């Protein structure tokens, strides 16, 4: 997956929002065929989203499918597996088998439609108790899984599934996010992301929520409104201080190597090669996001 800080949702049945979403400043657009589309309008939405994928080919375009394992997923994939689609978000996934099935479905369409093999990515939306428990198996079920999204939104499916409370900085979600992040990285998922922040009128809350996600190791976040994008993009970008630190680490490492010293010391902190890797990652990201 490319470096994507923000995915902006656009309801698949709303032509005007579909047209506006790509210009809102998000790194990617997430066309929604699921909950934001009334059942009666699913077919309309599939057609509109398919047209948008073709028209906007070359941008970072993703589609949120209907619930994992449902018949609708098959129809969704049939409509959107085409040039322009970068990946799909699979909600309410709880068993590795449904991930494998989606992988196979995508492969079939890639073959019959002359699309590059294995290129369409899968993002897993983990929003059930079972998904948290089986996060590693789910993430490891297909090589297409480029991201997992920890869906801990207030009032969302996961919170209901657990029957737990929700607070911004409280303990309710600490275990969930820590486990999902660890499992995702254990399965070598390159780009774990955080779910939506539901309160549109609370920029401060969004800031706190996003900062915490970033500290835990999530690389990006879903946005439900254009006004959330700036905060998300800013927080998931390397800071000036981090860029400066990265340059100093790489310089200090060079010096240490010349002295035969395996420890690199910057600001009194002793580091090994891992720090150089982190520094390199940060500089690469900074380069991506400054474009």
């Amino acid at each position, binding site marked *: 997956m490319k470096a994507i800080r923000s995915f902006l949702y656009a309801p698949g049945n709303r032509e005007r929002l579909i047209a506006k979403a790509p210009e809102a400043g998000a790194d990617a657009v997430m066309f929604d065929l699921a909950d934001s589309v009334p059942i009666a309008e699913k077919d309309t939405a599939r057609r509109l989203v398919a047209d948008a994928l073709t028209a906007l080919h070359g941008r970072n375009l993703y589609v949120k499918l209907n619930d994992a394992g449902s018949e609708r997923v098959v129809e969704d994939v049939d409509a959107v597996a085409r040039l322009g689609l970068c990946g799909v978000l699979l909600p309410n996934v709880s068993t590795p088998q449904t991930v494998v099935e989606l992988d196979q479905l995508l492969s079939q369409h890639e073959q019959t439609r002359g699309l590059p093999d294995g290129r369409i990515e899968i993002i897993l939306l983990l929003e059930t108790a079972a998904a948290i428990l089986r996060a*590693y198996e789910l993430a490891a079920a297909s090589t297409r899984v480029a991201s997992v999204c920890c869906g801990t939104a207030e009032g969302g499916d996961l919170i209901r599934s657990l029957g737990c409370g929700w607070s911004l900085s409280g303990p309710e979600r600490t275990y969930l996010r820590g486990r999902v992040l*660890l499992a995702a990285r*254990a399965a070598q998922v390159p780009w774990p992301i955080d779910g939506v922040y539901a309160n549109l009128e609370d920029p401060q809350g969004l800031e706190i929520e996003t900062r915490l996600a970033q*500290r835990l190791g999530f690389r990006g976040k879903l946005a439900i409104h254009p006004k959330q994008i700036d905060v998300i993009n800013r927080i998931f970008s390397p800071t000036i201080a981090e860029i400066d630190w990265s340059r100093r680490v790489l310089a200090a490492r060079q010096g240490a190597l010349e002295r*035969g010293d*395996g420890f690199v010391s910057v600001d*009194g902190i002793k580091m*090994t090669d891992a720090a150089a890797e982190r520094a390199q990652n940060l500089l690469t990201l900074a380069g991506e996001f400054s474009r």
Partner: protein
Amino acid sequence: MRPARSLLLVPANRQELLDHEAAHSADAMVLDLASTVPESEKERARPTVGARIAGNPGKRWWVRVNSTAPDLLAADLETTIGIANLEGIVLPHIHSADEILRAEELIGTIEARRGVALGSTDLVVQLDNAKAVFFAHELAAASPRILSLCFNGSQYGDLVTDLGAGWSIDGPELMYARQYALVASRAADMSCPLDGFFANVDDLDGLIRDTEVSRRLGYRGRMVIDPRQIEPVNRIYSPTREEVAYHQRVLDTLETAVAGGRASVTLEGKMIDYAHAATARSVIAQARELGVIS
């Protein structure tokens, strides 16, 4: 594993750290052939390990070997196994139980060839990547040689880099991983779960706070990388005299209660029963082992 509060990690190519006076108070020494020794120095460093360890018997010695490349691992194990007075080997950069089994096979072969008792080389497995932590319970069970797991969550270290996470002393970034590693260690009956080093050697206040968190989470010792870190680390991982005195009161109070026909009683406002007595005996035994009480 015998209790070890502080394990001084010393790059094998820079052993002058061991000449520091404070270095002698470390509970154990770990000579490192792995990530603190640059590639270009590994060949030169390897043969110095045996002489250093064999020449300093009254100390507890471990060697951390390279496990990322099979030829480096083999060369390091060849040098290390059979050194008189070696307590064991630290395996870093492990991702699966299979990797441990491969290392174990190699160790067994070398033990047999050297005439060292089969199975006598003990291991500590370092948890320094997401997969190792997530599967810590499986790694712990991979071999009876494994005496402890060492959770490596140092700032800017391998695990934090692998997670892409930030780092803070008592923040949420590594809390799940650090607790999970502890639970996995204890579930495998390991008596001395180990924590990794604190990277900022100039920040002794930070070291103290971080080690207090570590001890509260259940860790019994940690790696240190600077002689100045040893004293505070040894102190924090030892039960205090006040704790020992309290737990002695727990035992006395419960004994009296049991004699009177009750196994549940309050001490200083808190309910205690047999579970608390078991905890008390464990703390007192630990204090005795560490020389806090005689």
